[in-house]
């Protein structure tokens, strides 16, 4: 057996991997932002994604609206949802330290999963779109339209977050706070305002990732945890707290998964991804794009 049966199949696998990785990337950016400012590993990220996916599912089955408009709808709703979540839960608990926050995130995850399986039952659902099966031929390879949309959305989302961080005062405050919360507070930046803004953006990104998921994959209420894990790995690849790194980490993870599924066997894809993740953690703990100065404690 030749290792590369044909170059076109190989490129197809690479393209699919990159497109899949973009989806991990969107979720990872949100996770990375939240970790950067608040040092919380937000386990419920995947559950929030699936919640957005179900919202779109309702939107599509009840109204003739195209799921693509869901992006515009989900964004403000989930911004508010994230803000409320911070004000209601995390502002209080964040003071008590990282462990209770982790526990709270886990509790929220289970709560969301259960609520979703009560409302929408535990059956696997899928959102049908007119372009689900269509693809753009590009030489020998085909690019699935729905996955391409996901990739474009990922790039736009990353760009917007980047602009927010670089060009706005609040974004500057977020960057300062993620560098050193204590000093930032001394300079008059309100930790609560910064954290609430970051949290809202993180949740909104999870919502966007959820919309992206529902137009490419079937899902059920418990599907989200796997995504939380994948997003965590993507974040670690790119470096905790780095936005561009998170997207890059997602793409690397997607590539690793589809390449190892193709070259070795689908059963080993996860193990390869985790092994690469462990290696990166050991050899370059600050991530591929992270700065050396980043706090490791």
């Amino acid at each position: 057996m030749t290792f590369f049966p044909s170059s076109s199949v190989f490129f197809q696998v690479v393209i699919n991997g990159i497109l899949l990785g973009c989806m991990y990337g969107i979720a990872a950016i949100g996770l990375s932002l939240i970790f950067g400012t608040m040092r919380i590993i937000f386990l419920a990220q995947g559950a929030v994604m699936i919640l957005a996916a179900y919202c779109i599912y309702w939107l599509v089955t009840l109204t003739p609206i195209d799921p693509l408009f869901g992006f515009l709808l989900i964004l403000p709703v989930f911004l508010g949802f994230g803000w409320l979540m911070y004000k209601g839960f995390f502002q209080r608990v964040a003071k008590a330290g990282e462990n209770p926050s982790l526990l709270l995130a886990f509790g929220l995850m289970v709560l969301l999963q259960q609520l979703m399986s009560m409302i929408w039952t535990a059956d696997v659902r899928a959102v049908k779109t007119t372009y689900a099966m269509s693809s753009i031929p590009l030489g020998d390879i085909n690019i699935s339209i729905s996955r391409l949309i996901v990739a474009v959305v990922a790039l736009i989302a990353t760009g917007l977050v980047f602009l927010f961080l670089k060009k706005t005062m609040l974004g500057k405050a977020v960057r300062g706070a993620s560098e050193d919360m204590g000093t930032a507070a001394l300079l008059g930046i309100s930790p609560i305002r910064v954290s609430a803004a970051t949290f809202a953006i993180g949740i909104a990104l999870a919502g966007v990732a959820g919309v992206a998921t529902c137009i490419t994959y079937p899902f059920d209420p418990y599907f989200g945890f796997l995504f939380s894990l994948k997003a965590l790995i993507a974040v670690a690849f790119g470096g905790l707290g780095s936005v561009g790194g998170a997207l890059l980490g997602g793409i690397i993870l997607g590539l690793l998964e589809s390449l190892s599924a193709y070259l070795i066997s689908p059963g080993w894809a996860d193990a390869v991804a985790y092994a690469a993740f462990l290696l990166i953690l050991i050899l370059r703990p600050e991530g591929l794009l992270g700065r050396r100065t980043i706090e490791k404690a």
Partner: protein
Amino acid sequence: MIRADVSKQKKNYLIGLILVCFFIIFPFLVDAETSYTVYFFYTAFLYIILAQGWNLVAGYAGQVSLGQHAFFGLGCYVTAITWRAGITGYLDPVAMLMSGVGAAIVAIAIGLPLLAKLRGAYFALGTLGLGEILRVVALNGGSFTEGPSGISISSSVYLSMRHYYFIALLIVLITLLFVWFIMQSRTGLALVAIREDETAAAANGIAVLKYKIFAFAGGAFVTGLAGSLNAYYTFHTHTAGAFNLNWVIIPILMVILGGIGTFVGPIVGAFVLLAVFELTSLLTPELHPLFTAAFIIVVTLFLPGGIMSYITGRKDMILRKLSPFKWLFQKT
């Protein structure tokens, strides 16, 4: 003052002794085979072992591990594989010891690079990766691990619930004594010093890596023992059960609920959380996970330090709560 402490300590020893006696006598008071309470205690024991194992690593040494399910699953598989091969028998202490030692060896091998390089959240993520790798390896292990269907062994050798109960109780006692004596020794002091400030600990001549690995391997050892017992209890070891993330998440919840870094906390947390699980599943089978989640959220919102901090710090807390009304009690 010192005398008061000594008498208080004696009182605590006495309470412990009475509890142990109660747990030894209990299965003889009821019909152990059908009793729900015996089953409940057995499950609680299993979780106490896991919770205290995690507490040693995360609570005392400050290294939050999310990979305890790796050691649990490893214990399950070591026992199941040696049992299937006929090397060890049913409820064989040798197999259990092998499971514990196997888990400890893996903990040392993986702990050397991870603990030397990674701190905080990075270490947590790394250990999570370890558990997932082992799960995939077991899933793809071919005839050795029998893949997704797992290793089934005929349950015709089943003896009685009492056997499981007492073995679990014995492992709990071993775990508790192990952790107790560590925490009374210089090793315990070193672990807490590392948790509080690693740089300062190293500056004071503590071999940080050695102690961290000791705690990690010790936690893995008892977790492996629990995994081995679970393999004997279920007669069917498969990846979805043995490497289930619940084996790491639920013990963590128990420890945080009870009070992280305390000796009694994990025990209290295990009983309370398990009681909540069981009660809600009994009363409202449909809504039980919902109530469990709500319970976790409520506890973290109102008792972030855990139940033990509430009990020991109640007086201070009530005073603090009253502080806005201090003027009521003050003479002007």
